[in-house]
């Protein structure tokens, strides 16, 4: 691999690893908050126990999310000093404000976990709300840097120098709002379906007591309802995001759709593989006129094709598959959660058929895959640019050599972390089962569980 490829792979690996924990780190506090509020409303202790167990999980995941995030932040300037020089001059604000979001999350997380038994229940909810706020704010802020890479604003380049800097104009760049919403909604989607997966998986076990089964049933229902709301919101806003691409980064949209010729009444192609030679998508299903409609809300909308751009500016064509993967997952999650809710709430069936349960189990991993597809699509689809039409990736890479060894070391550490985090969660919850917690709760009352460690 050449120098640039190693740097890209190394950074991509770091981000792909961080994002799993980061996204769950945004989604879980939302679920914890929902459970806490439900507990206040219904006084059903099961919800308090849920909030408690999810908090435990969250605290363990933070043990990976925070250090890998730190790696991401430092690696940006180690691997892409050229990029960070521009960002430092123009787009430092989101990073700076993000620090406050991290601090809010860290301060109130400690209070929520370690002081739970010393504060009132409303104080606990306030602390948890601030944790959730800090998490989503940090996600929105860092995403804003990524939004700026696609739609840079707030400065001009004159003879290779950056002039006329307006940091707030850079902050409120054209894709800020759509990207912020897309990332927040999709993170909440992940939070909900990860819980749905675990609950469904537990319910499939044989020999559960009715009490425990009921507990998981409640968690599943809660996550299906929130999952439906947020996956629907993600898809609606995904539509806005697509229109944003149509206006600001047409070659990315063209690559996402495998569209070569500029045309009105452009078709939407689902599935298949883009073939550079024959300029078509092989094995794809075409929906006539749909792309024009999606891009501009009318069939006459002219969608620009790849042939209007010099070939060296084309993004890699496999992003078509990533885009399809994301949209497919979004659609699947909406249908699945809607069907799950209808089955139980409207058809009043007691139990789900096996196939339904297995689909629920799959929904969490699929949602995480959706996030991965989305990010890789958005970043790889921007190539060869690091900052669109301003700074190429090649110009921004470090001049330091010998990245290969470091890359291997980082991958080893991520592998160790991945294995140990799974191990620790399994270990912990095997020794602190739902029935243990239910029994303990009857004896000592809620939040007696919080005081350990």
């Amino acid at each position, binding site marked *: 691999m050449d120098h640039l490829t190693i740097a890209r792979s190394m950074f991509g690996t770091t981000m792909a690893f961080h994002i799993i924990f980061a996204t769950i780190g945004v989604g879980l506090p939302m679920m914890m908050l929902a459970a806490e509020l439900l507990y206040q409303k219904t006084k059903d202790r099961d919800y308090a126990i849920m909030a408690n167990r999810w908090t*435990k999980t969250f605290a363990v995941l*933070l*043990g*990976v999310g*925070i*250090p890998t*995030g*730190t*790696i991401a*932040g*430092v*690696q940006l*300037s*180690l*691997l892409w*000093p050229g990029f*960070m*020089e521009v*960002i*430092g*001059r*123009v787009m*430092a*604000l989101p*990073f*700076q*404000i*993000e*620090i406050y979001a*991290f*601090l*809010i999350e*860290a*301060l109130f*997380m*400690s*209070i929520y*976990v*370690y*002081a739970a038994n*010393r504060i009132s229940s409303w104080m606990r909810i306030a602390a948890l709300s601030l944790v959730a706020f800090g998490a989503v704010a940090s996600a929105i802020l860092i995403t804003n840097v990524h939004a700026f890479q696609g739609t840079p604003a707030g400065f001009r380049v004159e003879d290779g120098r950056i002039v006329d*800097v*307006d*940091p707030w104009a850079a902050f409120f760049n054209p894709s800020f709002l759509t990207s912020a919403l897309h990332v927040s909604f999709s993170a909440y989607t992940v939070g909900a379906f990860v819980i749905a997966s675990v609950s469904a998986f537990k319910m499939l076990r044989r020999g559960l007591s009715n009490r425990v089964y009921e507990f998981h049933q409640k968690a599943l229902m809660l996550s299906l309802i929130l999952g439906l709301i947020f996956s629907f919101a993600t898809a609606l806003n995904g539509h806005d995001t697509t229109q944003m691409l149509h206006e600001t980064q047409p070659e990315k949209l063209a690559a996402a759709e495998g569209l070569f010729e500029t045309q009105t009444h452009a078709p939407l192609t689902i599935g298949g593989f883009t073939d550079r030679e024959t300029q078509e998508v092989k094995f794809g299903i075409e929906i006539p006129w749909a792309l024009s409609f999606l891009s501009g809300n009318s069939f006459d909308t002219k969608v620009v094709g790849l042939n209007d751009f010099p070939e060296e500016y084309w993004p890699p064509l496999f992003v078509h598959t990533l885009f399809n993967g994301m949209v497919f997952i979004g659609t699947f999650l909406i249908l699945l959660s809607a069907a799950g809710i209808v089955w139980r709430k409207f058809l009043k069936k007691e139990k789900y058929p096996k196939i339904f349960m297995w689909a629920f189990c799959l929904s969490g991993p699929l949602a995480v895959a959706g996030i991965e597809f989305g990010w890789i699509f958005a970043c790889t689809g921007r190539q060869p640019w690091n900052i669109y039409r301003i700074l190429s990736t090649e110009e921004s890479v*470090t*001049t*330091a050599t010998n*990245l290969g060894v470091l890359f291997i*070391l*980082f991958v080893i*550490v991520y592998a160790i*972390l991945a294995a*140990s*985090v799974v191990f*620790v969660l399994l*270990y*912990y919850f095997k*020794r602190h089962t739902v029935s243990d917690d239910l029994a303990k709760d009857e004896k000592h009352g809620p939040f007696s569980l919080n005081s*350990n*460690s």
Partner: protein
Amino acid sequence: MSEALLAVTVLWGFVFIYSVMATMDFGAGFWSMFYLNKSKTKATNIANRYLSPTWEVTNTFIVALVVAVYSMFPGAAYTLGTILLIPGSAILLLLTLRSAFLVFSHNAEDYKKALTYISGIAGIIIPGLLISVLPITHGGFVERVGEGHTLNMERLFTSPNEYSFVAFAISSTLFLSSLLLSDYSKTSNAPDAYRVYRRDAMILGPVSLLMAFAIMLTLQREARWLYDRMMDDLPLLLVSVGFFVISGIALFLPSLTKKDVKGMPRLAVVAVCIQYLIASYVYGKAHLPYMVYPDVTIQSGFTDPASFRAVFATYVVGFAILFPGFVYFWSMFMHDKKYLRQKQTTK
């Protein structure tokens, strides 16, 4: 004061805050490992009680530090990013293992020992690596290649100056943290733990001072420009040593609040913090205007003024908003008698 000077003062403030917090954090991790088998004294419990709620907050400050460098001195960030690739990556890898295993050790009872050892040892190597950033910016190990710079690792790792910095970082991490933990355990009514930490502080204090002298001695040979400029402020350096002596004395004074133990650790902590503040002021002042000697100065690396003003405004607003949060946090974990004096934290 020029804007660049203001910016570098803010940066220096972050470095100072982080170094005190990190010292506590890494030191507490080490002590909780060191006294793991002596459960009688509660020394491990005390260290954990401090560490559990604070490590996340401390970690945020290292991120704040890195962000402050590249948002206020993007020009310097280019050079720093290039020369620090290897030491920086080493720090990141260790920091990651340390944080993760620290968290895991609370959740996997049977493996607590092994996990605590890994995070404790990793934690004590990190300050040594972190401080290496300082000798690297002195310029002796940086080579110019064409337009850019590279770090000569071989020269770095054969330099007595580098090793004195490393030794100083490790000894003063252990010193400061044992001092602070002695104060913490006194407030927590744990006289056995207090005696242990007070003794450790009394051993490690002189060791740290010795290492500081070693730094000055080797600095004279390896970075003469910096040594000479620091010596211009010799009176201040002597005042700083004076505060060190005060903190030593404070550990022997009779306690005003408790009869069964000796020493005023709170006073000692404050005196040592003042000592570090003065010494690092002298060092920082001598280092100016260079960020990386002799090619990168605070002026050449400085960001766009409009950006700086916006960033500076967020500092003011951000800290104003967060301040009540810090106070609440402090009252929950540093001051709350119920938290400090609980019988058992980890079961």
